[in-house]
């Protein structure tokens, strides 16, 4: 006899002896939560029911239970609050509403997993630029912890890394709700470790982290230079990895290019699947725009979307913000159809980005911080390889981005001869064409130069 059957028979006998109102009040949402050798634990929805059962019905219940099982000597009661959560799909009646009261986006996030439910695979657009990452993600979803562990995704700003890793988390949660999933942005990991050290609760934090089935860390590159965080993370990583728990990481660059993280972490990041997400091609950009427009219920001509797809090339987030701009424009102008001229005017800021202007200082800074070279002077003169290569890249970028003359560049580098500069530029140019890794590095540096 199962617990449910036993409780069912208790209920049907009790029902005969008490009034329907009493029965409905006190026995709703009760059940047997566990049966031990000679006691039974009954779960009740609140303390009022607990008191009432203990004092009023305990004898009756025990008597009925003993008819079925002689060994039971005692009945215990435990309070188990029922979740009164009403699963209510958000109404989408915002369509005709021209006004939009904004809410705290933080509250949308699932408290337990930290995942934002808006990131799913169904609104993730796949193209040649991310299909490997997507395929690997799907295989992680199928068997978390088995196929690709750790799963490391890297790629530039606004290309959908966060979307992809959160979608993995959401999908796993949907498939097997019992799994413990945790999404933690690296910054948060750092701050919680710092807090734990201060409050002397580091053991508790460790324990919590090690009970997770799927650990997702976003922007892992931020732990560079944070030694204590790296150490804690290393131990957590090992402990989860040994138990075949899935680890998912994202970063803006290949693990080998993250400066100031220990070798042992690097080698572990390299131990699983590494997938990159690159820039979306024209067709994918158009597909993304179409979907975003549909999501936001914006009807706009294909011509306008093509114009955006052609002109906003490097960042999916910017595609999204273009659509938002069109939407606001349309609202304020009472649903006038947006012409290509309007779009051009509206998107001037995004397309002719003022941040495309840079200077040599910015380029040098980006390079030194990218390679984590602290000493500026050494960078200008030293012949050591770790300085020479970044210096050559710097010369190449000054030439390419700022169109400075060779001799001018030479002067910036402690009076180097212009032939040295020419050599450096040609060398890097060639590497850029031929070496995939070099190309990624330079693209990432450029992204830094032009972000802010």
């Amino acid at each position: 006899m199962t617990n449910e059957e036993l409780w069912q028979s208790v209920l049907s006998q009790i029902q005969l002896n008490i009034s329907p109102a009493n029965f409905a009040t006190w026995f709703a949402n009760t059940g047997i939560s566990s049966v031990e050798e000679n006691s039974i634990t009954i779960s009740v929805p609140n303390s009022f029911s607990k008191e009432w059962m203990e004092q009023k019905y305990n004898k009756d219940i025990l008597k009925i239970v003993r008819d079925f099982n002689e060994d039971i000597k005692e009945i215990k009661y435990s309070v188990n609050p029922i979740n009164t959560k009403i699963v209510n799909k958000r109404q989408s009646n915002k369509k005709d509403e021209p006004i939009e009261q904004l809410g705290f986006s933080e509250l949308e996030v699932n408290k337990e997993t930290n995942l934002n439910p808006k990131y799913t695979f169904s609104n993730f657009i796949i193209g040649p630029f991310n299909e490997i990452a997507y395929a690997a993600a799907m295989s992680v979803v199928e068997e978390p912890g088995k196929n690709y562990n750790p799963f490391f995704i890297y790629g530039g700003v606004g290309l959908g890394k966060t979307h992809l890793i959160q979608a993995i988390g959401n999908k796993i949660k949907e498939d097997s709700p019992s799994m413990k999933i945790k999404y933690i942005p690296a910054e948060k990991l750092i701050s919680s470790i710092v807090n734990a050290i201060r409050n002397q609760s580091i053991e508790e934090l460790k324990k919590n982290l090690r009970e997770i089935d799927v650990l997702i860390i976003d922007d892992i590159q931020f732990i560079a230079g944070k030694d204590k965080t790296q150490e804690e993370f290393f131990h957590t990583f090992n402990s989860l990895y040994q138990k075949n728990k899935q680890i998912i990481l994202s970063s803006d660059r290949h693990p080998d290019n993250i400066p100031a993280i220990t070798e042992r972490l690097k080698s572990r990041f390299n131990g699983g699947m590494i997938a990159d997400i690159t820039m979306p091609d024209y067709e994918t950009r158009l597909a993304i725009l179409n979907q975003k427009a549909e999501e936001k219920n914006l009807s706009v001509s294909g011509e306008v979307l093509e114009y955006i797809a052609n002109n906003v090339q490097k960042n999916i987030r910017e595609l999204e913000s273009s659509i938002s701009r069109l939407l606001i424009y349309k609202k304020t102008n009472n649903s006038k159809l947006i012409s290509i001229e309007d779009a051009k005017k509206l998107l001037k800021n995004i397309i002719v980005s003022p941040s495309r202007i840079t200077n040599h200082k910015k380029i040098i800074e980006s390079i030194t911080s990218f390679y984590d070279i602290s000493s500026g002077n050494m960078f200008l003169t030293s012949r050591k390889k770790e300085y020479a290569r970044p210096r050559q890249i710097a010369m190449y970028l000054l030439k390419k981005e700022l169109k400075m003359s060779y001799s001018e560049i030479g002067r910036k580098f402690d009076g180097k001869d212009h032939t040295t500069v020419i050599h450096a530029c040609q060398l890097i140019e060639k590497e850029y064409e031929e070496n995939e890794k070099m190309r990624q590095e330079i693209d990432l540096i450029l992204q830094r130069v032009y972000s802010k």
Partner: protein
Amino acid sequence: MNFTILAKELKKGLGFTEKITGKNLTLPILNNLLIEALPNFLKISSTDLEIGMQWWGACKTEKEGSVVVPAKFISQLAGTLGEDKIEIKGKGNNLILEGKNIKTQIKGFSTEEFPIIPTFLKEIYIEMDGKKLKEGLSSVVDITSLSQIKPEISGVYFSFNKTNIKLVATDSFRLAEKTIQGEYKNLFNKDISFILPQKTVKELINILPEEDGKNIRIYFSESQVMFETFLPNSTHPEINIVSRQIDGQYPTYEEIIPKTSKTKIVVNKDEFNRQIKTAGLFGGKTNEVIIKIEEKGIEIKSQDSEIGESELNMPAITEGDFSKISFNYKFILDGLTNIKSSEISFEFQGNDGPAVIRPVGDASYLYVIMPIRI
């Protein structure tokens, strides 16, 4: 049962406990009060199975005993009594109330049927100033979410930390946080936090003392919490309120509170309050008012195609970018009501980020509000 009590005292007890009862059709016993004569004390209990309340008052008990009588009825009857002493007796399920020139008999029910209010382990508790809690709760309670879609924000969040107590409420469009500084006694020796349903908080505000320096205690048991006030100069409880806690985890609300601001203004609270009210009249159905921040002051604009439009100006100290941000004026007023200082600061994060209102010179309260997208 037989006891004598001052009518004033009886009215007081009925006034508190009667609020918890309501119309309960499935279990009519809940519409009643349990009246018990204990040695030297009269005890009145009521419950709706979500909240339970117990009240004690001094009386002269001749014979102990108890009765259950309809709450509304006995309160109405007590309301008609004068100031004199009255004598109450039990006779079977009935209650006999006798005073000068008056003799009544009320039909009651079996005390067996009345729910048992959960008991608590009383050795460990939190003890704090009751008035401070009352004021703190009053300043956040109306901000809780009324919808049950997210149950965890339908109550007030209590967080007892080492050095302070925080009370927080949000409805996902705005958030109020009150910090109670100062010593309090926490025998649990660890931080404690829980979410209390809005309804309980409102009842709690009613029973908390208005006088300075009266402490109250908070006890916990499985998913329940109890607040208790004490009789003057005594360790005997006066009123306690037992309630469920809301199951769930409160959002990490600290993340919502912006750490920096793009624009900041400081204005006279009363004048700002008036201006927002006036502008609100023209806000139409959407309640929308636009605040435009300029160099030496602010302009508050609102318009509605059916009502008309208004344009108001007031001086302000401004800092940072000039901008134009749109809000629901009611949300602004809700925040201002709970501020006592004469000046407030209003900090903005552009027209789609959270804005913060704080009283100038008082760090214990803050109010975060989301704009309306322009």
